[in-house]
């Protein structure tokens, strides 16, 4: 038979001053864990959210990133009339050839410089990426040195307001509008006219092609055809797949989050141990009485574990709450996949919160284990004799 739960809960709350160290310690551990993981999740979310499942991206075989891929006009001619590619109303194949350029630009407020991804895109390219739409200003006109930058990037880089201009090398580009990518990788890009891009940056090669397949089956056929043909030296994959695979930035952050959580939890476990030893020490007579009344050792252990677990849970809730303050906060880092600055939001998901809380409780239980066993081992009489 167990001791009532309220016994554990009330005991946890009644000595709050001496339990602060534990609650804060656990809160800190959970906070760091959730924060770092939400960073990684935010990065993954933005790349996971990118792309249209009907689109297929074509790049040079062996390239790991669109920005370093180089494919030729000839390649375009070779594949543009493949039957698997959908046709628009005018009977033209829905295929877009993009040029990606990395441009080193200054951040606002003297925040140093970073690479920004510029995408030279054709009107078809815009259609294929329906996630992207204009939120301020207007789209660029072909033949002009105009660029539409991501609204999120505009907050971070100098001269990105609508109407402003910035220099890249010797070229001046004017910002005519802001785009929003709907929480995808496109939120870290700036778009301009493809031909202008090639002229300015002296590119006669393209970076990638994006095609709309007739249907899923046709899409698979297309991919196989490209992969199989050795002449082309191209590779094709679903657009969503390409973006989903970009884990190089998030992975080390996740690892760091786990590593820190585990190492720091040692401190939290010690704090919990200390608190519970104190509790047991202060309540030896109480515990003895419970044993006299007939409660088994087990019941005492469970009651103490509940108490420690509950304290740790409080700490976990506190840690999650503080981490949640950062939820939705936009920040940026150098993406290791594209080598350009990627913007994303901290994403504190329910799953993360759950993980954090479970972790907290486990820490509490581990810390309480030894004191609980000690309490249970107290000989009944010695407990009664204490003054």
């Amino acid at each position: 038979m167990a001791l009532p739960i309220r016994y554990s809960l009330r005991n946890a709350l009644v000595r709050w001053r001496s339990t602060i160290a534990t609650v804060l310690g656990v809160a800190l551990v959970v906070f760091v864990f959730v924060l770092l993981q939400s960073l990684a999740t935010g990065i993954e979310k933005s790349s996971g959210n990118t792309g249209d499942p009907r689109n297929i991206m074509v790049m040079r075989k062996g390239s790991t990133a669109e920005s370093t891929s180089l494919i030729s006009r000839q390649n375009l001619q070779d594949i543009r009339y493949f039957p698997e590619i959908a046709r628009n109303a005018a009977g033209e194949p829905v295929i877009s050839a993009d040029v990606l350029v990395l441009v080193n630009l200054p951040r606002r407020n003297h925040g140093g410089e970073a690479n920004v991804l510029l995408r030279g895109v054709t009107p078809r390219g815009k259609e294929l990426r329906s996630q992207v739409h204009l939120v301020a200003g207007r789209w660029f006109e072909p033949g002009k040195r105009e660029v539409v930058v991501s609204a999120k990037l505009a907050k971070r880089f100098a001269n990105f307001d609508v109407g402003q201009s910035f220099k890249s090398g010797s070229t001046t580009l004017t910002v005519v509008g802001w785009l929003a990518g709907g929480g995808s990788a496109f939120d870290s890009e700036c778009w301009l006219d493809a031909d202008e891009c090639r002229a300015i940056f002296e590119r006669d090669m393209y970076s990638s092609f994006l095609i709309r397949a007739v249907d899923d089956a046709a899409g698979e056929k297309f991919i196989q055809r490209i992969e199989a043909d050795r002449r082309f030296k191209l590779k094709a994959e679903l657009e969503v797949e390409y973006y989903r695979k970009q884990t190089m930035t998030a992975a080390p952050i996740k690892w760091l989050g786990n590593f820190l959580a585990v190492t720091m939890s040692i401190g939290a476990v010690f704090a919990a141990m200390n608190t519970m030893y104190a509790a047991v020490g202060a309540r030896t007579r109480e515990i003895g009485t419970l044993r006299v009344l007939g409660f088994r050792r087990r019941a005492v252990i469970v009651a103490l574990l509940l108490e420690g677990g509950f304290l740790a849970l409080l700490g976990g809730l506190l840690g999650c709450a503080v981490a949640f303050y950062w939820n939705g906060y936009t920040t940026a880092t150098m993406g290791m996949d594209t080598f350009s600055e990627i913007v994303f939001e901290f994403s504190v998901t329910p799953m993360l919160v759950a993980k954090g809380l479970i972790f907290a409780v486990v820490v509490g239980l581990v810390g309480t284990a030894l004191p609980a066993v000690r309490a249970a081992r107290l000989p009944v009489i010695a407990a009664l004799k204490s003054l």
Partner: protein
Amino acid sequence: MNLPGFIIRNAFRNKRRLALSVSSVAASLFLLITLQVALRELTNPISDEGSSLRIIVRNKVSLAQPLPARQLQTLERIPGIVAVSPFSFYGGLYKGDEKFTSFAQFAVDPARTQLLLADAKISKAQTEAWIADQTSCIVGRMTTDRYGLKIGDRMQFTGQIYPCDLELKIAGIYHGTADDRNVIFHQKYLDELLGNPGTVGTWWVRAAFAAEVPLVTERINRAFANTSAEVRAESERAFVLGFVSMWANIKTLIGGISIVVIFALLLVTVSTMSMAIRERFRELAILKALGFRRRELFAFILAESFGLAMGGAIFGAGGAWVVYHLLNIQKLTSGLFIRFEVTPRMMGLAFSVAALLGVLAAIAPMLTVARTSVVQGLKTLD
């Protein structure tokens, strides 16, 4: 029995807990030192004597944008420059590596790199063999050791940035530079594979005098202003630091983590001391009743707390020093770090942190002992 003996005997009363707390302190300090060393290695660029004379010239647009090869003539004529060579980062995947290759490959004009590679120790015969064979390369000793390569072996690379693959023959092995990992081959070989596009990645320049480097970079920048390919020339050091600045907040991140680790450490030491003293309450009250003064009791507590912290420091910081001294960090991190040196300053930092913690952890127990009367103390059960 003397005082130190008494203290030590007391400390060893609960061996399991003592072991636990000392190892936790040790682990945290080990982590702290590792973080500080990593930070230092990541933000202080590799430098040797030559690097203070070398300048990197890149396209002003970005590092990813190439430069026209014809710029060479202009560069040669700039006063204050003693050597110029193409310097293109190939960034390929070495055959056999799965996801990434931890050593770099650069294309240069070997005939022009004598001064630029002045730090590299390599036999004259090997250098000449390299210059003579356009499909050859020289490789840093760290890489040849790691992969067990020797002169005459072939190395294959898949292009990840450039649309071509390389097959190079090792003509020479060098060592003595700050980064003995790199593979250096012929720009002409790369040009041919690419169909002679007439571009290079960056220019590698050596100035005549270190004091003149700012002046020379200024001259270079001006020389190409308002051309179709404007440049950004900067000292090699500034160039490497620029990379780190792209990682934006790594200093803050590591700094933040260090603080957090210290806090966790504090929790451990304070909790341990609290537990230890709570066990001794009765004893301490008896000592008080016997006539020991508060001062002496404080000394007991402080000595034990300090001992715990220092013990942890010896194992943690000392351990880190030993481990990083003995381990081949380069191998372990696949070349992410070349060197991982625990400096005396860091050891000092770790020991100071430990000492401070030792003192802090003793405060609460000392206060409790001071406040509790003898009678109360005697009533405590143990």
